[in-house]
């Protein structure tokens, strides 16, 4: 069977997730890129390099979603220390307790269908300040 000429960026991303890693890209000058792409925005460079995040970030914004008849849950935008942003959920705390500016750490969990998913846990404050 013929193989695709190019590996899809999403496939590489998911492969990293399956290994327990949150991956992102950098352009040759080090600029972080997320979501993963074949072509760097603005510069058009195609030699993007993959990196694995250390997994630490800060909540940039947060909302608590209230579905009818279901438990409420958090959805946040997380600014990673490496300089990229992604959407995720902060779990393990009451969704209303998730605050902008809160320090969080990634945990690769599984979605209902088994797909690996990067979720976040709040970092206890004394640990965050150390």
């Amino acid at each position, binding site marked *: 069977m013929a193989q695709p000429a190019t590996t899809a960026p999403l496939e590489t991303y998911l492969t990293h997730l399956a290994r327990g890693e949150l991956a992102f890209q950098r352009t040759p000058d080090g600029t972080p890129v997320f*979501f993963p792409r074949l072509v760097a925005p603005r510069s058009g460079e195609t030699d993007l390099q993959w990196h694995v995040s250390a997994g630490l970030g800060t909540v*940039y*914004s947060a909302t608590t*979603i*209230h579905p009818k008849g279901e438990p409420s*849950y958090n*959805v946040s935008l997380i600014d990673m220390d490496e300089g990229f942003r992604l959407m995720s959920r902060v779990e393990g705390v009451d969704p209303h307790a998730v605050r*902008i500016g809160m320090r969080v750490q990634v945990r690769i969990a599984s979605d209902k269908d088994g797909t690996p998913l990067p979720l976040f846990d709040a970092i206890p404050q004394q640990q965050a300040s150390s």
Partner: protein
Amino acid sequence: MTAMKRGGAAVVGVAESDLGIVGPHMTPVDLMAQATVRALDECGLALGDIDAVFAASAQVRFGPMMLAEYLGLNPRFLDGTQIGGSSFMSHLAHAVAAIELGLCEVALIAYGSTQRSVSRSAASPTDINPYETPFRPMMPASAYALAAARHMYQFGTTREQLADVAVAARQWALLNPVAWEKEPLTREQVLSSRMVSDPLTVRDCCLVLDGGGAMIVTSAARARDCGKRPIHVLGTGEAIGHGSISNMSDLTTTAAAISGPRAFTAAGVGPGDVDVALLYDAFTITPILFLEDLGFCAKGEGGAFVQDGGIAPNGRLAVNTNGGGLSYCHPGMYGLLAMIECVRQLRGECGARQIGRHDIAVAHGNGGVLSSQCTAIFGTPATL
């Protein structure tokens, strides 16, 4: 580069289709066609005069094609730009340019949606984004909620100020006979209504209704012979900030900060010259963002601007005088209805909600999740 001639094109006909609930067997193109003949009626033009078709609907993949088929048109210029609720300001910008270049003479811009009758999920299937969808954001509300939460964090904007946007929209809607909402709304009612995506309650979210509209645009020269007072397009501006909310670099500043100055520069006027502003109110946070980004107030001061009736009737600025997407009608892509209200206000046709001085109007459209931003500035013949 040649700049477009200021006011070189004018709106000569506008109309809504039936609004509200049109029933499950009405199609979006039925509504486009219905609005088209109503818009033609008020300017004395006929279907045969139309030589350019601009159309978009979340339910119709090939808008201009389906509308041309329905109406039996043979347009020489077509544009089906689909960038959400701001599509129609974009259509207008392109129509003005095409008229100016002689590529067409009479442009039809049309919209139709039956999302209320067929259900919103059937009308606009959510795009799957592998970097967002698995986290189950309630789109589009959660995207706007994230922006609102950040605005509150950075500038101290309050839920009461958000609520006052909904209250003002309702006050205007009560003056508009075709507005969906007919009962007064208080700040307390907004604050105590069901939370959807914190900090936005169901009353911070736009209506989900059927509806459509049409606009006829032609050259300023030809507009003089049409039935109504021509309303000139003084300037337009388009900008795209991002596609998905996780790629919006600063959640408190939209690309309206780019489209607005483009439009104002082209029009040769500033925010202080504007008599009425139709600022896309998909959610209560959006008029606050657009007041700031378009320059009606400084960044971070939008909450104070709208507080305590700031944009209600007799407030500091007439905003969303039709009652907006929050209380008049929101069929999913509301931009054309906002422009129709601008034209009617400038003609002086708005009855109980008619503003006093009415020379210059702004319609600002928003598409996606604060993604596409398009601004159109209209003026009466006196402003040329």
